[in-house]
């Protein structure tokens, strides 16, 4: 792989890493929101709203799972970058992190 291709790969990995971090942050926010919805929707004695609350609660868990999967994927991308370049690359702060 020549220097230009290597740089392209590093840029792509960096882009993916940043986006995955963003998805993780969004999933966390939405998960918290969905959990709040569960509590709000169960305030009413209505079967339909309770079913929506149940679905919100499951959505909250699945968003938390997405968050966890993003953390794992971000870690793997970081490892890929290290393996490819023998240094920390953008993991060590060359590229701005989302958070």
């Amino acid at each position, binding site marked *: 792989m020549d220097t230009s291709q290597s740089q392209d790969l590093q840029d792509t990995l960096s882009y993916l890493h940043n986006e995955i971090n963003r998805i993780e942050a969004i999933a966390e926010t939405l998960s918290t929101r969905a959990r709040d919805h569960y509590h709000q929707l169960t305030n009413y004695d209505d079967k339909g709203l309770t079913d929506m609350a149940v679905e919100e609660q499951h959505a909250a868990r699945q968003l938390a*799972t997405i968050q966890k999967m993003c953390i794992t994927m971000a870690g793997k991308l970081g490892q890929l970058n290290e393996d490819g370049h023998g240094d920390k690359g953008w993991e060590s702060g060359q590229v701005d992190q989302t958070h």
Partner: protein
Amino acid sequence: MIKLIENMIRSAIDKSVDKMITTAIRDQYTENLFEMIPTAGKIGMVNLMEIAMRGNHGTPISRPLGSPIRLSPWEKILFNPVHLFRFPTQETMGIDTSVTIGPRAKKPMTISIPIMIAAMSFGGALSKSAKIALAKAATAVGTATNTGEAGLMKEEREEAQLLIGQYNRGGWMNTPDKYKQLDAIEIQLGQGAQGSCHQRTSSKNIGEDYREVYGLQEGEAAIIHSRLPGVHTKDDFIQLVRRLRDETGVPVGLKIAATHHLEKELQIAVESGVDFITLDGTEGGTHGGSPTLQDDVGLPTLFAISRANQFLTQKGLVQGTSLIATGGLATPGQMLKAMALGADSVYIGTAAIMALVGEQVVRAVPFEPPTSLVVYTGKRTSQLDVDQAAMSLIRFLNASLMEMEQVAETLGRATLSDITKADLCVMDPFLAKATGIQLGYVAPEEQSQFFDETKPFFLSPDHVGYDESTIHH
């Protein structure tokens, strides 16, 4: 008028009961209908009826849903809440319920809740609509469902976001065109309610849709062999696992009936490099199986999981090899205790089916059993509302998860998978000794002293001359 009829009925009942009691008291005991009461007490009502059924059929009878005998003493285990020594988890914090099955696989499978839908095959066990309802519910909650010993049903694959397929002893899923469509592969060598015994579904119970999924000819029976086709040696099995892992990249696991030979079976499983191990305790359910295989064969789920966890811990494989518990797990407490004992996740079968049927039970009873709505050969399968059934199961799973989360909160744990034996105590010294859970009778620092002082009560069979040779003869 109504009052008059009511009084007449009361009077008739009064006279009939009086006559019945008087007859029961005066008649010779050997000629007395009352003899049925002590007889049923001696033999058991279930056994009494099954004796009559055997006498009528002349072939092994097929009891649905598994053994009524509950051999795993889950009720003797309790969780240990915390207050100050460690603080409870704050209620505003969500409890992490996700689990990754087969973390060493190229494509591990992450599920949002640690409860999966157990292997229940289309045709061999359930109707198409029941399988679709299970798949819909599993997808809605972010978990996996299992094909059971069947071929790949297109509709199930489409509905299930995560589908575990059984590489089975009937051979119906064992070709690349099928198993490459799965999210995890479970090599099925046995099940709690059947051991590794063969099973046969007669062609009279096989419809066109069944034949299509299984690739059977008209008039051909569906046979699950006692051995997996092509696997006759330990090396055959090891090669199969390696080939499936290489070809697919998805987690490849092994499912067996729990047995006292557990460690010997697990040794071969870990040599093969399986990503997960499913242990089905003797309490495991089935669409129908002989009472003897259900009641008298296997090892209870609780001990199977505890022993497997100890085995994997000793081998240093507890992190890389997922352990899945199944067999008679009916309550969230039992499921969470299985996880605390070392299971990464659990499968539920009977509980899922009961939840699925839910309120729709009224469409079957009193003239048909509730399962007639969901089993392939059931008389009421066309009356099952798939979306309503899926929603009942979604609600059940949410309620179960929330109860498990409540326990995690009071234990001061942030994730369900962080709950371990250290969060348990047990109300039986033998169980404590066998499972490594602390005995609730005495303080943690007095455990050693208690067991030292009571050593004579815990002599192993080796100390009383009870070795394997005596077992064989």
